């Protein structure tokens, strides 16, 4: 065991791979090696002007998927995904086993993946997060080897470093032509920006596009290019657009969430960064969307314009863009049909692939230009370390997403979260799983007030004094939370079995997740 820079014990090897313990946000440099690719040169003659395969089975056969390979998907449809499970069923029917499943992320709709693990179709997972029954099953130790969890930026780094080699990428696209040009923003079921899919299309050895809207050649706009695509399959439905944001785009009326959002907006307003030409990533969810709306009001009244908004884009950001208060949007994914449709018609609404967005070794990523990001966590410790993966019972129930990437890069990283959730304190002595190091976080905003990380941001406290927000130390917030909830019993883990490793942006290991012992 090695101890890393956030005092977590990391094994020296996992999955037969030597681990690098996390040493600090920008401590590591990439290995001196060219960008890895599994892509082979391929030959197509003019008489082969059609890549349509009859069905998923034919497509799987045509790309030569075999036992032990790695397959990937993108999660642009989030909870509306209708592609992953049919593909896995077709693979199972062909008797292919022992696959590594490496999608950009998995959501609650992927609970049935557990069945494919049980029958040996899938024996290893690499993802951004795990939720629902799948998260529970992995936490209980269903897989022999630990799952590898990566941030959005780190996944691209891992692909380029040759640590994640995708044999076949199965990519759902809203429209495609017969030769493999595709977009996410026109069609029957649009998911907007294909930021995740573009990466897999570029790097996977083989690329299968799946669409429910075949258009005449050439499809436009082109987000995925024909020269990266092996075959195209037409199905009845690739996903349900209405379920992408799962109601997250609705403006919350929950008074506690609105209060956290109001406090977060005040932090932004008094941060010194809320000036003409600022940039922001708010994300999606009840609090971020409320923050976007409150911030929009202040932008209108104070006549302040943002140079750009970044990341996952929903209707609230899209409307501010259309009103002219946000000059440009860099969209990695779109959270609702309004944002998806807007991507199509406007050159200032720019589709951005995940590597461009957040790859630390990608020679410059968008988040390096970001002023303000709003993030959330399941829990934080008094050193500002954040857990966004494991719940109060120790089980996997979240995703790293772009959180650790953005927090590390943005000038002002704000964690917005409730001090307590039901009877569980959110601010504790020690979080279950460190995902974002405290050195990346400027402040945490709760319904009671704000705690500033003075080590990272010495001026913020003074700036916030004028805001009327109540300021606390992390220790004070932790004690307040404990006074309301009491101190939960520690979770019982089996320290002999690691079920997941958590990679930091640079591929080093920031923490591991242990098997939860049954109660």
């Amino acid at each position, binding site marked *: 065991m090695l101890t890393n820079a956030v005092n977590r014990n990391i094994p020296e090897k996992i999955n037969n791979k030597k681990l690098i313990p996390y040493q600090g946000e920008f401590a590591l440099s990439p290995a001196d090696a060219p960008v890895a690719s599994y892509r082979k040169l391929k030959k197509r003659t003019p008489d082969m002007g059609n890549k349509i395969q009859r069905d998923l089975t034919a497509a799987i056969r045509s790309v030569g998927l075999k036992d032990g390979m790695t397959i990937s998907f993108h999660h642009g449809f989030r909870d509306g995904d209708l592609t992953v499970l049919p593909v896995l069923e077709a693979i199972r029917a062909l008797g292919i086993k022992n696959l590594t499943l490496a999608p950009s992320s998995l959501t609650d709709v992927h609970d049935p993946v557990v069945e494919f693990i049980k029958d040996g179709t899938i024996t290893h997972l690499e993802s951004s997060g795990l939720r629902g029954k799948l998260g529970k099953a992995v936490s209980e130790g269903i897989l022999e080897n630990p799952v590898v969890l990566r941030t959005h930026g780190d996944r691209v780094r891992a692909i380029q470093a040759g640590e994640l080699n995708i044999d076949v990428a199965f990519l759902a696209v809203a429209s495609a032509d017969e030769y493999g040009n595709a977009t996410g923003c026109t069609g029957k079921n649009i998911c907007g920006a294909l930021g995740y899919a573009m990466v897999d299309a570029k790097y996977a050895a083989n690329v299968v596009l799946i669409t429910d809207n075949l258009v005449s050649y050439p499809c436009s706009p082109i987000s995925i290019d024909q020269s990266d695509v092996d075959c195209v399959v037409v199905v009845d439905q690739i996903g349900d657009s209405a379920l992408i944001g799962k109601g997250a785009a609705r403006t919350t009326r929950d008074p506690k969430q609105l*209060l956290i959002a109001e406090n977060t907006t005040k932090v932004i307003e008094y941060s010194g960064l809320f000036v003409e030409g600022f940039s922001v990533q708010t994300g999606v969810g009840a609090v971020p969307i409320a923050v976007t709306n409150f911030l929009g009001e202040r932008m209108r009244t104070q006549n302040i314009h943002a140079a750009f908004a970044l990341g996952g884009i929903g209707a609230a950001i899209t409307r501010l863009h259309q009103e002219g208060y946000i000059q440009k949007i860099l969209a990695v994914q779109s959270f609702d049909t309004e944002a998806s449709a807007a991507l199509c018609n406007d050159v200032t609404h720019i589709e951005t692939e995940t590597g461009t967005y957040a790859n630390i070794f990608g020679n410059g990523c968008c988040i390096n230009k970001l002023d303000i990001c709003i993030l959330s966590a399941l829990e934080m410790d008094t050193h500002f370390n954040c857990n966004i993966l494991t719940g109060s019972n120790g089980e996997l129930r979240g995703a790293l997403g772009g959180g650790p990437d953005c927090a590390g890069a943005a000038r002002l990283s704000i964690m917005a979260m409730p001090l307590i959730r039901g009877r569980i304190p959110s601010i504790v002595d020690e979080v279950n799983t460190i995902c974002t190091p405290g050195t990346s976080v400027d402040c945490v905003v709760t319904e009671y007030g704000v705690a500033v990380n003075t080590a990272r941001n010495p001026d913020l406290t003074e700036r916030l004094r004028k805001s009327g927000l109540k300021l606390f130390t992390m220790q004070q917030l932790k004690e307040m939370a404990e006074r309301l909830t009491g101190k939960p019993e520690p979770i019982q883990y089996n320290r002999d079995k690691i079920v997941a490793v958590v990679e930091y942006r640079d591929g080093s290991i920031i923490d591991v997740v242990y098997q939860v012992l049954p109660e």
Partner: protein
Amino acid sequence: MVAEKIKLRRTMMYVSGSSPANIAQATIYGADSLMFDLEDSVSVNEKDAARFVIYHALKTIDFGDTETVVRINAINTETGHQDLEAIVRAKPDVIRLPKTSCAQDVWDAEAMIAKIERNIGFKEGTIKLMAALEDPSGILNAREIAKSSKRLIGMAIGAEDFVTSMKTTRSPLGVELATARGLLLMACREVGIYALDTVYSDINNDEGFLEEVKLIKQLGFDGKSCIHPRQIKPIHQVFTPTIKEIDYAIRTFGAIQEAEEKHSGVIALNGKMIDLPMVERARRVIRLADAAGILDGGAYGC
């Protein structure tokens, strides 16, 4: 000589004894007072459970400088007596008596509270009282109720029961409450205690709510009971002096100071005589602004 700070009671938010989660975090919305309820929001078979929840909440949770009020069940019921026995021991700032019809109701409660205070060694008079007037007798006896006890800090109108007993219903303009509000207000003002308006039940009607808040502010109420955190901010906005009002008040004091320096008996502002009621109003504006944290009232001797 700086006057004692005004206690703001712009908002008194109901929190049901049946919802422990809401009690634990009730302070975060910034209501001036929290009113934990044992009466109408608690079903008959939950009364004892709610009583224990509120007792323990008052004993263990730090409500900071938010005033704590408990609405007990009617003083002439067994449940009301049991409420007093428990709640006085938990030492809220105020106990609110529902359905108060006459001074005797307040005296009964006061006698019981005093007895409990003596038994447990509290200084007699520790617990303050509020009376809710909810029927014609209560309104018609408002003067005697207002004068009934030194513990009484204010009176409130409970409109739902009142309009029913008046054979009418509530309407947007509140004409059916005009007389009752007026009588209650005058009774409060005569003895210098707080007057609080009734709840507005339609939490989704933001516009109607704001109209009512403006109306009762104009009538002269000190504040309003509310049933949802969303109602707090609009009430505070209406009840907090505007920059224009504060500016005028400051200039009024400036004119007074100037007159004193010149030993002039006549004080004028913008060519207009300043009389005593104007000074009083200006003082009240400054003190309200001070209580709301907008300025330091001490600087103006308020």
